[in-house]
Structure formats: C-alpha cells, structure tokens
C-alpha cells in the first residue's frame, strides 16, 4: 500500500538564481521569486498511474523532482503513506526514478547497474541475483546483462534504467519523460511495454511527459499543467470530453481542437451557438448545465474536434469553409480549412469519399453534432463546467 498526497505544494526560485532550462516568461513572480509550481494539490491512490503533462517549462518535472526529493519543496506538504516527506532524503523515501537521459552508471555492466541499489541496501547476494534475473526477464534484457551501457541501443538502455528502478520494488516509481529520447517507432513499442509492465508490478506510478498521446494511453488520471499551475485533473476520457478551458482543449487530442469565433444566443431555456451565420441548438444536456450556471448570451469561442466534423448538405446546418490544404493519410484525409479567417482542420473519412478532391480555395460545407462541441467564454473557460478545479 502506498498513497501519495501533495498539499499546496509550491516551488519558488529566488529571482537572482539563474535556472538553465526554465524560462520564466509566463510564470508568476512574487516578492520571494519565480513561482515554478503554484499550489499543486493531488491525492494519489495506491497503484494509481498518474501522468503529469504539459508544455516544456510548465513545472511538471519540477513537481516530480520535489516528490523525488531532488528539489526542495518551498511551501506545502508531501506525504507518502501518510508520512510527511518534505525533509526526508531521496534515499529514504523508498522511491525509484527513471530519467529521460537514462542516467545509467557508465562504468558498470547492466547487471551491476541493476544490482547497485540492492547492494546499497545490503541485501543478501542470492536474493540480489534472483531479483535482477527476474527484472531482466520481465524487460527482455537477460542477454545484455554483461554488457556496458555504451554497447546498448537507446531502447535497451531505457529498459535497463527501468530495470534498475523496479528491482527495488519501490513504493512509488517516478518516470521523467522516459521515452523522449527514443525514435517514434520505438517510442510506441516502449509505451505498450510500459502498459504491460504496469500489470506485472504492483506500485504507484508518476509519469511526466509533454506528449499527450502518452498521457492519454498510460494514465489512470492525467494532470495537465501550464505555467506552474494545474489546469485540470481527470481521467483521459474526462479531459477529452470536458476540457475546463481552452488550453486543455487545445492540448489534448490530435489533431488539435479547432477554435472558431461565434456567438452564444439565449432564447428562454434554450441555448444556440451561431457560427458563420448558421445557428445550431446545443444538446439538452449542455443547455441544462448552462442554465444551472445562469450563463448569459455572449461572444464565445466554439471548440470542435476535427474528428467530430463532417461534410454535410443538410439545409440550415451548412457552415461554409474554404479549403487551404488537404493531406491524404490513407484511412482519412486531413482537410485544412478556413472559417472567418480562423484556421482549422477537419478529418474526412476516405470511405465513401475516396474520389473526393479538395482543391485549394474550394468552398465546402460542414457541420457537427451539438453534443460534442465546447463553448468557451472570453477568458477561455468552458461554460458548461461548474467551477475551476
């Protein structure tokens, strides 16, 4: 059993300190310095897989390093298994970490690398050997045990790094962008292996990435961060279905969600959005949520995912768009369009449209289901979400 609790965690770098890879541009500054992580709150259940995701410089790695004990926690409290960990040395926190750069010990063989944490804990030799062999078996690196890290490929090195982390059976396994240094194909493969690995070892995971695909596929829950502030915490489905603001909406999903300028019209209890002269009524569910919040008519940003848009000829629902570029992807076509000077992408299934040619400058008509769109106010907040997290 190992649970984690992060309470009001803050990281403040003094202003005079130069931090190489942190850009402070959008971070909040206080009298004490730059707020790299601002009031981070999260309860992690036993054996949960949490993914921290966000663009570079958003504070996700800093948060992870504070959990690891590599960075001091400026404010707030960190509990592992209900024990306050703020001032405990990394080695006494019973955590393990996998680094982006693998951080293998170059002078040791793979076996020695994996034995190292166990030796430091003065474990009996036979037991060490058993555990290392087991972990190597799981990760498929048995045949490389006597090689030095420099004789391994990137993917193999990352397996060794994971092996070194799991032999100890830590309470919490931290992973800091472990797949970023691998090429695309290997990354997909390793991602699948991490999912498999998870079912074989019982531990709590915290995984940092800037890649939303990794976040969506791996996480039980995703924490989306921006400029040191948590934007949304939820399951992959939740953050996909109801992003709380424009940032989350744009960050989750590939290709990115389209944003169009429109208007929210209120007519009694009914809500409509107007886009490019076409009025579409929102789904009853959304209407109920907005009515409960007392949302008034206003200028809004309408968010529609490319996969939720479709070509149409239905009267009254045809939204005009101009084609910029089309990309044939085999199973579908990515059509880059322009609606009132706003650029967007829509995905058109090739089935039934295989002979369809999208020429530059051509006018097309599209529509979307009212249930799958998102309406954001001028501040970028989702109008149907009750309150900010």
């Amino acid at each position, binding site marked *: 059993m190992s649970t984690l609790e992060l309470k009001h965690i803050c990281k403040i770098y003094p202003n005079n300190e130069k931090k190489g890879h942190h850009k402070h541009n959008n971070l909040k500054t206080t009298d004490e310095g730059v707020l790299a992580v601002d009031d981070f709150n999260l309860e992690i259940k036993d054996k949960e897989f949490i993914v921290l995701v966000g663009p570079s410089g958003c504070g996700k790695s800093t948060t992870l390093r504070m959990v690891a004990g590599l960075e001091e926690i400026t404010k707030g409290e960190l509990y592992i298994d209900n024990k306050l960990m703020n001032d405990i040395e990394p080695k006494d926190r019973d955590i393990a970490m996998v680094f982006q750069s693998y951080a293998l010990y*170059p*002078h040791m063989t793979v076996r020695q690398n994996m034995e190292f944490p166990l030796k430091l804990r003065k474990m009996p030799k036979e037991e060490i050997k058993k555990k290392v062999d087991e972990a190597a078996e799981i990760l498929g690196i048995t045949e490389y045990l006597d090689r030095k890290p*420099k004789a391994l490929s990137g993917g193999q090195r990352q397996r060794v790094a994971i092996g070194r982390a799991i032999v100890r059976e830590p309470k919490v396994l931290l992973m800091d962008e472990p797949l970023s240094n691998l090429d695309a194909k290997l990354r997909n493969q390793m991602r699948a292996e991490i999912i498999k690995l998870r079912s074989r070892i019982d531990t709590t995971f915290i995984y940092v990435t800037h890649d939303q695909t990794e976040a969506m596929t791996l996480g039980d829950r995703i924490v989306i961060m921006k400029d040191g502030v948590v934007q949304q915490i939820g399951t992959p489905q939740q953050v996909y279905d109801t992003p709380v603001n424009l940032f989350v909406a744009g960050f989750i999903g590939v290709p990115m969600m389209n944003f169009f300028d429109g208007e929210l019209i209120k007519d009694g209890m009914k809500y409509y959005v107007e886009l490019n002269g076409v009025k579409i009524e929102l789904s009853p569910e959304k209407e109920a949520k907005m009515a409960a919040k007392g949302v008034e008519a206003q200028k809004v940003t309408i968010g529609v995912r490319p996969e939720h848009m479709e070509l149409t000829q239905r009267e009254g629902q045809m939204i005009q768009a101009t084609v910029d570029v089309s990309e044939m992807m085999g199973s579908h076509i990515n059509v880059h369009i322009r609606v009132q000077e706003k650029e967007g992408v829509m995905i058109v299934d090739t089935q039934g449209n295989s002979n369809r040619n999208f020429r530059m400058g051509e006018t097309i008509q599209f529509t979307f289901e009212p249930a799958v769109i998102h309406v954001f106010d001028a501040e970028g907040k989702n109008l149907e979400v009750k309150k900010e997290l």
Partner: protein
Amino acid sequence: MHEKNKKNGIIGSTFLTFLCIFWIMPVFIVLWNSFKNKNSINLQPFQLPSNETFVGWENYGAAIGKYGLLQSVGWTVFITVFSVAAILLFCSMCGWFITRVKTWWTKMIYVLCLFSMVVPFQMVMYTLSLVANMLQLTNPFGIIIVYLGFGAGLAIFMFTGFVRSIPIEIEEAAMIDGCTPLQTFFRIVVPIMKPTYISVGILETMWIWNDFLLPYLVLDLKKYKTISIVIQYMKGSYGSVDMGAIMAALILALIPVVIFYLSCQKYIIKGVAAGAVKG
C-alpha cells in the same frame, strides 16, 4: 594512386625514423658515457666506450655510494607519490564540489585556483621559502603540503572541466538509489573520472619528479635531497665535476620515469583520444 601513397609512406617512415633517432640520441649518449671514465667523457663525449675507456659499473657505484643517490631516489619517490596522491584526492573532491554546489564562495575558490596558475613561481618563491621555514615544512612530509598547494590550480581546473561534462542525472540516480554524498563520489564519480585522474596524475608526476627549484628552496638540504638536487651537488662547488657519476645518476633517475611512462602509455594515448573524439 596506390603507388603514390606507398611511396609517400616510405618517405614519411624514413623521415620519422631519423627524427626518432635524433630525439633519443642524447639519452643514449648519456647511457654510454655513464660506462666511460671521466677523461674520455670530457674529451670524446660521442665515442662509444672502448676497451681503454670502459669502466663498468664504477660510475654507478660512485653515484650511489659517494653521493647517496639511493636515499634521494627514496625521498623523491616518497614526495612524488604522496604529493600526487594528495593532489588527486583533494582536488578531485574540490572540483566536484565547486561544480555541483554553486555559491559565490565556490566560484571564488575556482577563480583563485585559476589565478594561481597565472602567477609565476619565481614571484612567490622567496616568500614561500620563508613561510615554509616558519611553518616547519622543510621536510619531505611538509613539502607534500606545498606541492598540494602549487599543484591544485591545474588539477582543480581539469577536474571541474570534466565534472561539468558528467550529466547530473547520474548522481541524482545514485542519490535515489541510496547513496550518501560520499558514496556517490567514491562509487560513481571517481570511476567515471578515471581518465582525468590519469591525465592529472601523469602531469603532476612528471612535474614533481623533475622539479628542482621548489625542493631546493624548501627542503632542509643537509638532511633531505631529491634526485635533481643530488645531481646538482655532484657538479660540486669547488670546480671538480664528476661527469661519470652524473651520467650514471641521470640514467638511474630516468629509469623510474621511463617505467612509469611505459606502464601508463595505454592511458596516456587513451586520455588524449578521449579528449579529442567525443564518443
């Protein structure tokens, strides 16, 4: 094309062979002169020993017996080994510390170390010998401290340069794996820094072994002499110069350095290559 390369190769090899012979000649001249009698060393220094001029091990006997060369070899080895060991241990720790702990005073230490490399020895040597006297460092134990001070500049410069190239994640991984700072240093950082230890070790060994002025100024010469001082003493202050003994002493002084070089040759070349091509 192939033909031309071959021809160039032959010319190059011949040239380099002559260069090598030219280079090593002085050593051989000293070697064969060490087996000749005094007169012929002075009159025909380039001639090989003949039946008349050959004196066997006599010069070596004189160098060892009369001038106490063996004792000075002992002291030189003692001073060199322990000074280099002290420099390697303390300077690597210092280099690691001032790279990883960034405060104004670690920066100061680094700048001071660099500064000490710029100041010529001749500028500080008289004050140094005075201070050494005051602190009673005029023995082979005390001089180790003096060497540590003078060697630190270059050593710390080289160690900091190398530590900067070690990714900090490796040390962080060690900390998470359960290392204390000392364990991190000795079990992780030291093995990674091996090439730098060897380069610094070789440089400092060559310097301390061959150094004349510093021990001459600092050591109590009545009790302790290093090899270079003994050879200087052989020249005598009354005009009589025992060239035979000098030649023998030079050869004896050379042997340990040659052995040292041959045994470290692999690492010297490796060290140079490691610096040149980043693998």
